[in-house]
């Protein structure tokens, strides 16, 4: 029984055990031991390195982000996977759909990182995420003719809050009003804008000129209509008295406008709509959104995994139970909520746990997608481990402590796996 048999077994197992021992087990021992020593590796440091993990700002951010990752990413991926799995059962081309969603799993995190750097490009002319976002936004709030135009301090206008401007003094019929502004990009000046005219008084009406008080090439006098200055064609002007708009006008090509006598004594408002800036989208990779953005790319990669596992579980469900529920008058949602999900619970648990382990070790995506300026904000444990382990500032004690922390976090899963296997073995 033993003897030669045992020897043969040893020969079969030897390569595996040597590799596992040297490259997997030994490093665990090394890390555990090293984590109790100081930077130089000579002085015993007790739990100092572990305390450092939870006190150093940068590392603490990593801990926090990892917590967010572990909760959000697997949940989202599993939820999407569940929805996709259930829905694909109802369409003929379900397999094709599954292929599409599952495909990202085959590519490297590096490639996915490059893909999403492109997606999250800030400039809405280049990044598709912002292009869509801005597109949606602009259907509700259009940008306007003179973004960022504004008066100078010497001008008879002042800020009225909310991006609007208002005259400092009320206007009078017969006394022409001046509405000078600066800060209009040459490209924003309408092609058909004409040289502005000094405002002329008109009896029984409030007249005035709205013009771009800026001479090309410099040299103009502020607050005066100089020769080559043009009218602000299309500028909307509202006469407001006692908080009510009493009249409105639009500037002509030479900047002139006329309001009825009713505007006498009112303040002239240039509503915010004149100056609304083109919406520039969201800073996906800015400090606040970078972690959600990277999580988004992870979900893109791994929702397919959840979907395929759940679909396999779904295929194994007893159909009679579902049909019975339907016959009992349950609608699809109730069937899903009350029958499908509970029956799938074990599969869902496996998927969630698997993704959680996977997410704990996330490195490449953050490393590639987060620009240098926000790597601290996007920091995760595996990235911090890399930073702490190598370089002149390396602190192997802290690096090892992070290793051990990662290990501790996966140990429950280790036991979960072992229990499952022992059960299956029986």
């Amino acid at each position, binding site marked *: *029984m*033993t003897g030669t*048999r*045992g020897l043969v*077994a*040893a020969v079969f*197992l030897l*390569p*595996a055990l040597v*590799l*596992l021992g*040297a*490259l*997997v087990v*030994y*490093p665990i021992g*090394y*890390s555990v031991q*090293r984590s109790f020593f100081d930077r130089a590796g000579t002085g015993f440091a007790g739990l100092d390195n572990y305390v450092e993990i939870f006190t150093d700002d940068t590392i603490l951010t990593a801990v926090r982000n990892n917590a967010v990752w572990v909760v959000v990413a697997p949940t989202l991926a599993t939820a999407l996977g569940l929805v*996709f799995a259930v829905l694909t059962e109802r369409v*003929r081309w379900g397999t094709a*759909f599954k*292929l599409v*969603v*599952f*495909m990202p*799993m*085959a*590519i*490297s995190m*590096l*490639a996915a*990182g*490059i*893909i999403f750097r*492109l*997606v999250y490009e800030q400039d809405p*002319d*280049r*990044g*598709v995420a912002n292009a869509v976002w801005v597109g949606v936004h602009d259907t509700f709030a259009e940008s306007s003719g003179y973004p960022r135009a504004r008066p100078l301090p010497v001008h008879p206008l002042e800020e009225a809050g909310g991006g609007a401007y208002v005259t400092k003094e009320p206007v009078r019929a017969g006394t022409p009003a001046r509405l000078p502004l600066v800060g209009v990009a040459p490209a924003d000046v309408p092609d058909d804008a004409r040289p502005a005219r000094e405002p002329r008084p008109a009896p029984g009406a409030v007249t005035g000129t709205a013009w771009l008080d800026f001479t090309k090439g410099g040299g103009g006098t502020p607050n005066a209509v100089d020769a080559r200055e043009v009218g602000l064609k299309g500028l909307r002007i509202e006469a407001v008295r006692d908080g009510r708009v009493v009249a409105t006008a639009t500037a002509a090509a030479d900047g002139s406008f006329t309001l009825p006598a009713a505007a006498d004594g009112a303040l002239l408002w240039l509503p915010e709509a004149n100056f609304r800036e083109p919406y520039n989208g969201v800073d996906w990779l800015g400090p606040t959104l970078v972690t959600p953005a990277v999580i988004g790319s992870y979900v*893109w990669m791994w929702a397919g995994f959840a979907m*395929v*596992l759940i679909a*396999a579980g779904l295929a194994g469900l007893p159909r009679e139970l579902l049909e019975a529920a339907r016959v009992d008058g349950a609608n699809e949602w109730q069937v899903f909520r009350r029958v499908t999900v509970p029956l799938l619970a074990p599969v869902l648990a*496996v998927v969630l746990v*698997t993704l959680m*382990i996977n997410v*704990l070790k996330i490195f*490449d995506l953050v490393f*590639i997608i987060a620009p240098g300026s926000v790597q601290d904000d996007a920091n995760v444990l*595996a990235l911090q481990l*890399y930073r702490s*382990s190598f370089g002149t500032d390396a602190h192997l004690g802290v690096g090892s402590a992070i*290793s051990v922390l*990662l*290990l501790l976090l*996966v140990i429950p899963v280790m036991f979960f*796996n072992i229990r499952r*296997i022992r059960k299956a073995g029986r």
Partner: protein
Amino acid sequence: MGSRTAPASPASRLASRLAGGVTQVFLVVVALFWLMPTVGLLLSSLRSPSDISGSGWWEALTAPAQLTADNYAAILRNDTITDSLLSTVMITVPATVLVVVIGSLAGYAFAWMEFPGRDWWFLAVVGLLVVPVQVALVPVSKLFGQVGVFETTLGVVLFHTAFGLPFAIFLLRNFFAEIPRELLEAARLDGAGEIRLFARVVLPLGGPAIASLGIFQFLWVWNDMLVALIFADSDAPPITVALQQQVRQFGNNIDVLAPGAFVSMVVPLAVFFAFQRQFVSGVMAGAVK
């Protein structure tokens, strides 16, 4: 699974048709959404650098004249990229073969050989499934440095093999254990030794599991960046590392990064489409990894 028992009343039939339509539309939208990032990369890789920096890739949809293979021509003439693709192969193939060979030897031993503490050893190996590779970076660097395989392809291969083994052993042991005992007994009666038995009976029967494992490991190693970043020969880095070196100035090097990323994806995608079934079953079995 399109067919279902027909609903009873015409009204509910209409409702379910409607729901079916909504489902279809929803799934089409999701599928397009899922494809979009990859399509974006592909189209970007086919545009000139000045087009990329000037406008979004979607412009190429309406102006197909923009598309050009120049970036691809350039990276295929770029020694760094072509050499790194070769390095990727040189790392991936041995790391896959070794895991399959060593894993199936051990898997067989755990399934069919008797030795003291067998089940405990097996559980210990399974426990190693979840050990993150990051734990080993520093200690293995030092170890490899002492042995002289740091900064070599061999080092990366050994590392990937070691971290692929727990899954390999787990998968193959379970698969081998399903082989009917009579088959093995019959061969033993014919006088076959363990080695013959393993080579002639067990390995051929283990085909499907070995295929799943091989594909899984192949993709895993092919797609790795971190391990290679640290252990690989920096004069012959794999494609992931070579591309990573260009990321520092992402916007400027996009004409290398986009086609490079796409080229690096071609093999995994081909493997994926060719061996979907094995890949999926590998993934399912490996759900614990």
